């Protein structure tokens, strides 16, 4: 079929993406791991594993447990740290035309600011995604992402030290996600991405111990899709910045659901483990849907379920 390729471009602040499909932080390593399985040049954007100022060892194993249509992880934000990221991981990504988004995390607002300032110097870093699901060590360990005031402070700090788009990644483990979204919008975020993992656990009934050494872990995968979708709908209702949908996306249909709910783009997470080709299949599937439904661009699709 000689169908005209539909226009799948989208914008997040000043950032232009060739299509709305990104890989979610922590599920795609630093890109290189998937280099032989995925055409990295076709992706909308690559988001790398969360980076902290200093390297982190992460939590003891077991770190993973499977659940019904989902998985729990407690990686403990293990990562190589900022310096090794810049020296060991960035060079490979510089060779890929796809925009790079760096996911950052810290224990204090200052941590986030320092990360933002240093990454601002690297032109290849097209945007930051600020993971605010981490516990704030200065405030007794309550997650930045569960308190609108703290979420505001982190966002503002990053905003001041980074000149390109700032995406804030929201935690679903809150009573009212719109409130947090509103706070980060006000603090200058260019976009919000959601959802991060849902706090869960599993127990081994033979050893009588939690399956994860960390006891609790983050639930991801198809099981959480209804939750992510609902939160994207709620947030899209109350903010005017772009919303990026995440959670349980395995097929083009799942991605389209998120976009219909109001997301301008999506991230593919756990599915990378199961079907590395999924992101490419999703890009193609969204394109095919636009063509079949005679939609000229992503604008026709974004939030359509809210208008029909």
């Amino acid at each position: 079929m000689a169908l005209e390729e539909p226009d799948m471009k989208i914008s997040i602040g000043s950032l232009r993406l060739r299509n709305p499909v990104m890989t979610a932080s922590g599920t795609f390593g630093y890109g290189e791991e998937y280099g032989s399985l995925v055409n990295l040049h076709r992706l909308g954007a690559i988001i790398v594993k969360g980076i902290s100022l200093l390297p982190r060892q992460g939590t003891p194993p077991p770190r993973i447990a499977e659940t019904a249509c989902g998985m729990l992880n407690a990686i403990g934000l293990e990562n190589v740290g900022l310096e090794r990221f810049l020296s060991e991981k960035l060079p490979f990504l510089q060779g890929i035309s796809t925009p790079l988004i760096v996911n950052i995390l810290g224990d204090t607002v200052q941590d986030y600011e320092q990360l933002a300032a240093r990454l601002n110097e690297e032109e290849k870093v097209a945007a930051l995604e600020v993971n605010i699901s981490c516990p704030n060590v200065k405030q007794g360990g309550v997650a930045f992402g569960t308190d609108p005031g703290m979420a505001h402070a982190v966002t503002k700090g990053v905003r001041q030290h980074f000149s390109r788009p700032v995406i804030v990644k929201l935690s679903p483990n809150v009573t009212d996600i719109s409130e947090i979204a509103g706070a980060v919008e006000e603090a200058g975020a260019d976009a919000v991405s959601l959802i991060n993992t849902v706090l869960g656990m599993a127990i081994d009934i033979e050893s009588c111990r939690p399956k994860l050494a960390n006891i609790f872990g983050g639930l991801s995968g198809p099981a959480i899709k209804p939750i992510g979708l609902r939160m994207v709908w709620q947030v899209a209702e109350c903010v005017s910045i772009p919303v990026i949908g995440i959670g349980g996306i395995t097929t083009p249909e799942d991605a389209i659901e998120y976009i219909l709910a109001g997301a301008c783009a999506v991230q593919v997470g756990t599915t990378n483990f199961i079907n590395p080709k999924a992101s490419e299949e999703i890009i193609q599937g969204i394109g095919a849907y636009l063509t079949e439904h005679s939609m000229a661009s992503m604008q026709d699709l974004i939030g359509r379920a809210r208008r029909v």
Partner: protein
Amino acid sequence: MQAYQQKAEVVSTEKVTGDIYRFTVKAPDIAADARPGQFVMVRAGDGLDPLLRRPFSIHQVAEGGLVQILFKVIGKGTQAIAGLQVGQHMDVLGPLGRGFVHNTMQEHYLVGGGIGVAPLLFLAKQLLKKNEPSAIRVLLGAGTKAEISTLADDFENMGLGVQVSTEDGSLGKPGLVTDLMVPLQNENKVMVYTCGPYPMLRAVAGVSSDKGWACQVSLETIMACGLGACLGCAVLRADMNGYVHVCKDGPVFDADDVAWL
């Protein structure tokens, strides 16, 4: 590292014993690159439950782009794979990880426990290319005869000396596979290659260390990606300072590099 995702046709299935199966699939790219000790991540069907792929050692590769796995049915994932018929497909990702390193040792001891013999057959074939059969010794442990006799025959048919131990004494020496190691005396440089349940690996590593033999262990952990991306397969380093990752740094490690807990 180059990995391939292939929809691999099942070309033959063999029920080795009650719950152990040997499946052969056509996966030419994987077969061409595979080295002993590497593994594949497998998924049967498109269902969402079970969700994750399951890791299996590469048991053998053969002419015509064939890859073989030897596996035991444990739960949902292995059940689904065991249910595949010849002509159906499984989604196979591989070859993954770092396999066994075969240095210029004088003697090679292959020590397998239960389903842990899986990667050793491939390794034995490879070793035979550069070593005399007499330089290779196979020690196999199992619970009972049925679990191991077919595999023991496979090694014997390659002309290798095989010793077996079974916990119930139904074949070979009654006891554990380390009981076969202890009496061995050797002046030569020995490399032990071992795969099996964790307590066995720890014991084999211990005996090897006592004897001054080098030892490579193939470790198992729960895995999500198999590609070094999820960081789920962490194992504590020997120096207790941080983790190695089984899918990327292993599954085969020098026994001295990991902490034995």
